[in-house]
């Protein structure tokens, strides 16, 4: 019998449903794991041990047959939790206690999940680094902004955690920590009750250790919410069935020329080509595709929109409490306040064209394939790393998933990223799962295996 902390969401929920695993035993095992490793890794803001055990007991008394029966989940500390502080790791929200749960938190609970606690984020989910440490090497950044969520999943403190992505805040830390990160299509999961960075970019993200688990969490949370103006009315398929329907060797579009490979280190380029070759040898059809011209301004467009919307959200606080913000967030807000309104609107128009062009490209294959990050996690705790490989997809609203694909020479995780057309998460996850199995890796940080 494997240690409880190594279980996937899928296996744990199955064991809970079949009566092999008691939710209280499972929750206690994870809480003990947190006690052991939290001093080293600093992943959590709030853990209410009594509430966790109480919820677990309730699951035992009223056995859930839900997708996530009895499975504890971590939440980035920007998700509203009724009666529990939601600080966004900021001085501005330091004492904020929401009166209701975010819609996605409600849906996780309805699926049988137990809220394990609130995970550390960078301040307001932006770019001032958090104190969280990378379990693969504590001298290297874990990335951000979903730093605590990623570290907790990678080190076995929980099998799943929620993050968010406005630039690269889910898929980049997933890659740096050697886990799976899913950024669904914009609008697929409600953002109601999530502290915003930028309304038209923010997307709820999923951090787990297997692609199947990503599908389970997506299933639990996806769907229209009238409380979220950005919520999509798109039908929600059964993603596990969809993965099964797309279980054959995928057709992959390797984005080898231009943006992604130009910005990658030689090691990352070679690694990505080797991974693509391994997938091709296993049966995938890999063809090289070129990026559209509109890609050249994609990152600039994303930064303009993010900074202006971020400035708009924070303006009320910022007028009188600017000194309480971290230096990078403060700079982003100030830049947002200076960007002309016409430039913001032109960026939103360019973004619509960009989305159209990328959708056309993505529809040519099951999934686009590229390196997940330009380099492994930097040896620098004053940065969260480079979001350049995520920001364009976030800007276009397309779904992406990162899976671990090996180790760098320095022993740090490397990942590959897949993207698909809007609302094609089933096809995307099917392709990613096939690739995950073809690569056949079992990556755990040696000091926390």
């Amino acid at each position, binding site marked *: 019998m494997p240690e409880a902390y190594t279980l996937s969401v899928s296996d744990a929920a199955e064991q809970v449903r079949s009566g092999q695993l008691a939710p209280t035993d499972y929750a206690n095992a994870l809480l003990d794991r947190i006690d052991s490793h939290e001093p080293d890794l600093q992943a959590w803001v709030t853990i209410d041990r009594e509430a966790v055990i109480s919820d677990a007991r309730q699951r035992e008394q009223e056995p859930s047959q839900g997708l996530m029966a009895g499975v504890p989940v971590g939440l980035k500390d920007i998700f509203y939790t009724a009666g529990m502080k939601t600080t966004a790791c900021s001085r501005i929200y330091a004492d904020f206690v929401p009166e209701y749960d975010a819609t996605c938190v409600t849906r996780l609970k309805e699926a049988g999940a137990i809220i394990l606690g609130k995970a550390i984020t960078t301040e307001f989910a932006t770019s001032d680094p958090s104190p969280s440490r990378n379990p693969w090497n504590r001298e290297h950044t874990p990335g951000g902004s979903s730093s605590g969520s990623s570290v907790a999943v990678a080190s076995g403190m929980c099998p799943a955690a929620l993050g968010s992505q406005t630039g690269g805040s889910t898929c980049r830390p997933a890659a740096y920590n050697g886990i799976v990160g899913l950024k669904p299509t*914009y*609008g697929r999961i409600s953002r109601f009750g999530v502290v915003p960075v930028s*309304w*038209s970019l923010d997307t709820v993200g999923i951090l787990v250790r297997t692609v199947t688990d990503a599908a389970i969490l997506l299933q639990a949370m996806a769907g229209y919410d009238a409380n979220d*103006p*950005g919520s999509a009315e798109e039908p929600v398929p059964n993603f596990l069935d969809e993965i099964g329907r797309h279980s054959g060797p995928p057709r992959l579009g390797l984005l080898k020329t231009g943006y992604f490979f130009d910005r990658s280190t030689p090691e990352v380029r070679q690694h990505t080509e080797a991974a693509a070759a391994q997938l091709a040898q296993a049966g995938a059809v890999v063809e090289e595709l070129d990026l559209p011209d509109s890609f*050249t*301004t994609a990152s*600039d*467009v994303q*930064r*303009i929109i993010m900074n202006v919307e971020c400035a708009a959200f924070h303006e009320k606080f910022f007028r009188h409490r600017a000194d309480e913000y971290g230096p990078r967030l403060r*700079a982003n807000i*100030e*830049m947002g*306040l*200076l*960007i*002309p309104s016409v*430039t913001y*609107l*032109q*960026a*939103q*128009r*360019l*973004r*619509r*064209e960009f*989305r159209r062009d990328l959708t056309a490209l993505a529809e040519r294959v099951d999934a686009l394939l590229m390196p997940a990050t330009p380099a492994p996690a930097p040896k620098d705790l004053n940065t969260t790393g480079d979001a350049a490989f995520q920001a364009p997809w976030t800007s276009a*609203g397309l779904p992406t998933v990162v899976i671990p694909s090996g180790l760098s020479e320095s022993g740090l995780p490397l990942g590959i990223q897949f993207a698909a057309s*809007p609302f094609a998460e089933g096809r995307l996850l099917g392709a990613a799962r096939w690739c995950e199995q073809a690569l056949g890796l079992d990556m755990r940080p040696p000091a926390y295996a």
Partner: protein
Amino acid sequence: MTDRTPDISFEETLESMTRQAEARWGEGYSAEHQDLLELAAHYIVNVANSLPETETEPGFYQ
């Protein structure tokens, strides 16, 4: 129909940004935040020189 590419220079944009920043946050701001202002000017010029097709409406909620 495609828009004419405007003739907008980095230097003029940076100067305008610097004036606005100093009006908001004082004269010392631009010296301390030159990198930030240059980055903002870079973004503005890149977007202004890549204008979308005339018929394209903004994206907002996608």
